[in-house]
């Protein structure tokens, strides 16, 4: 009951502040651009080369309007070649700074479009919290978070030191007035002889912080509100990754208990009972039992179903293949032409991870964002990618990632991926199981000869659209008097097909 009450109060506050914000938004958008529309345009047209908060192919664009005039930006975006040709010094300097790589021209943009984009880059009319997770939060905090991420997060984190100090609950440590003065222009504050400011400057080896004269007092208040706000951890109710260990363990326990009871009965028969028949029966039972279990144990030798080694990088197939729907063959690209399916080299990882340097998906209790970010960092460390400068480190000696082989088909059996993937059109999941749901890969099939033969016996061969079978199919259907042919009937059961 209590929580319901609380909820309605929070809701009231949110509604009130949202209405207020909407009103504010309306006023602002009259003069400048529309933030949401700008975001859309930015994502489609600019985001390939620009990010708000850091350099990509082109410069970071957050608050670019503070750096360049609106007219200049309009001219540059519409036709930067013309602007450079007109002899504009800024434009030519920029072109030189980026090694003469021209930016695309956008003559199709209207002035309103460009205003919208600039509104988005300056982030002033704040995004109204859309999803429920943020909606529970005071809008001031949500806006503060955005401002923090756009302006501060390059050097500060809440919970740990980065370039600058950790900022969680900084208001407990410093006065509000001091923080305002420091953020707006820390150089001036230091020049005024403030002892705290100078001590801080010294502590960080005289590395000056950027001044932020563009942040209004209101903006700074919002940022401070965010730093003192304790974020409620996102739902940890995410389904635990396919953890089948528990139900398995319970059945194992049941069989152990049953086995022990049975053993006790047998022991009792031998020790206490005088019934001869019972003793003989128990002996036979015992002998067969040992034989059965013994052979069972021997047949497990070399079978590695459920084998799930700890890999050097905890690559989640669930995230890549399940959530983001990347095709198996995007990374395992040699499966279509080669005997092996191919373990992707790191340049394939970098096709996406040049841009995606951190994880933003759902987290579980034991695997948080920092964990996944660390795993991505391992890729960077191996290939020598400097994610802050978005460039490969010069003269870096790359280190191979030592992945651990999961599926080991016995060396005396020949298996070819291309034959199964390209010719037969067998899906990867047929043999490897639902990999797209696996946080860590484990062996799904037994990889025994019986398992191979079973599939060859039951799988119909795809004859259509394969010129090779045009003749042979007619002959086979005459010979066997049937319409459909399984792999085994075509000789898929001959020893020499796989063992040679």
């Amino acid at each position: 009951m209590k929580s319901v009450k609380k909820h309605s109060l929070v809701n009231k506050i949110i509604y009130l502040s949202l209405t207020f914000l909407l009103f504010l938004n309306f006023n602002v958008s009259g003069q400048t651009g529309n933030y949401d529309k700008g975001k859309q345009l930015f994502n489609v047209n600019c985001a390939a080369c620009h990010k708000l908060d850091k350099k990509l192919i082109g410069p970071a664009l957050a608050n670019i309007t503070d750096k360049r005039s609106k007219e200049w930006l309009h001219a540059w975006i519409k036709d930067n070649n013309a602007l450079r040709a007109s002899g504009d010094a800024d434009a030519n300097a920029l072109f030189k700074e980026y090694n003469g790589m021209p930016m695309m021209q956008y003559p199709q943009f209207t002035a309103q479009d460009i205003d919208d984009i600039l509104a988005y880059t300056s982030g002033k009319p704040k995004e109204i919290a859309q999803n429920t997770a943020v909606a529970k939060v005071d809008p001031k905090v949500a806006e503060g978070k955005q401002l923090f991420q756009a302006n501060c997060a390059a050097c500060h984190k809440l919970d740990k030191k980065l370039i600058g100090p950790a900022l969680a609950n900084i208001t407990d440590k410093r006065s509000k007035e001091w923080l305002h003065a420091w953020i707006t222009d820390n150089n001036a504050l230091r020049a005024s002889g403030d002892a705290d400011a100078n001590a801080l400057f010294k502590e960080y080896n005289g590395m000056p912080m950027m001044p932020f004269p563009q942040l209004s007092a209101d903006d700074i208040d919002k940022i401070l509100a965010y730093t003192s706000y304790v974020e409620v951890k996102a739902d940890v109710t995410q389904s635990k990754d396919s953890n089948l260990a528990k139900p398995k363990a319970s059945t194992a326990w049941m069989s152990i208990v049953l086995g022990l009871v049975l053993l006790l009965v047998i022991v009792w028969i031998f020790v206490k009972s005088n019934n001869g028949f019972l003793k003989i029966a128990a002996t036979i039972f015992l002998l067969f039992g040992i034989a059965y279990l013994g052979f069972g144990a021997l047949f497990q030798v070399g079978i590695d179903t459920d084998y799930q080694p700890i890999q050097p990088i905890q690559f989640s197939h669930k995230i890549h293949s399940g959530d983001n729907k990347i095709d198996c063959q995007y990374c395992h690209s040699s499966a279509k032409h080669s005997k092996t399916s191919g373990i992707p080299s790191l340049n394939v990882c970098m096709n996406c991870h040049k841009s995606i340097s951190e994880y933003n998906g759902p987290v579980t209790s034991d695997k948080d964002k920092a964990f996944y970010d660390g795993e991505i960092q391992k890729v960077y460390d191996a290939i020598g990618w400097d994610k802050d400068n978005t460039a490969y480190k010069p003269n870096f000696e790359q280190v191979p990632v030592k992945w651990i082989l999961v599926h080991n088909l016995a060396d005396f059996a020949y298996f070819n991926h291309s034959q199964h993937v390209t010719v037969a059109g067998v899906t990867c999941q047929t043999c490897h199981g639902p990999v797209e749901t696996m946080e860590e890969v484990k062996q799904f099939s037994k990889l025994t000869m019986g398992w191979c033969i079973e599939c060859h016996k039951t799988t119909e061969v795809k004859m259509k659209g394969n010129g090779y079978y045009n003749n042979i199919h007619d002959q086979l259907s005459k010979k066997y008097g049937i319409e459909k042919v399984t792999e085994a009937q075509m000789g898929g059961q001959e020893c020499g097909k796989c063992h040679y």
Partner: protein
Amino acid sequence: MKHIFNIAILALLAISLSFCSRDNRTRNVRYMASTDMYTPVSYETYGTNPNYTNGLDAQAPVPGTIFRGEVPYEIANTEEGYQLALKTLKSPLEVNDANLANGKAMYTIYCTSCHGDKGDGQGVLMQREKFLGIPNYKDRAITEGSIYHVIMYGRNMMGSHASQLTDKERWEIVQYVQKLRTDLLK
């Protein structure tokens, strides 16, 4: 007699317990693990190889060599190279259904995640805001030469896809992208 039964009972217990202790982080017991034919004696694709200085079996091709089936690509990975490819490079493949069908299959594997089924830039990664700024093909003045060049070397945030596709497959994708672009421009 009694001893034998006692031993038998103990053996049964030991065997049945051994089933419960299987740890799936390590491999199961192997019979003559090093000498049987389960693990290869020969050098395997991703194995180690003491004959090479870096110890890897997978070696990059020797500089200046071309492996079978591959066609050397002479245009440089520069802005001038891009312009040159845009204007002069032509596809060696004829436009036919087989090429288009395989182009579509390859496009679906290697391109849809970002560029979308229709080439409008609305792939899953774009929709989930993992990878932003993917252009619609109709908004770009691209030719078959420039498409091939970009698949080969990548451009801006798109990486090179040369290592995942053969020369023929690249041209087939080019053909299919051209088709998507004409459909989008309609």
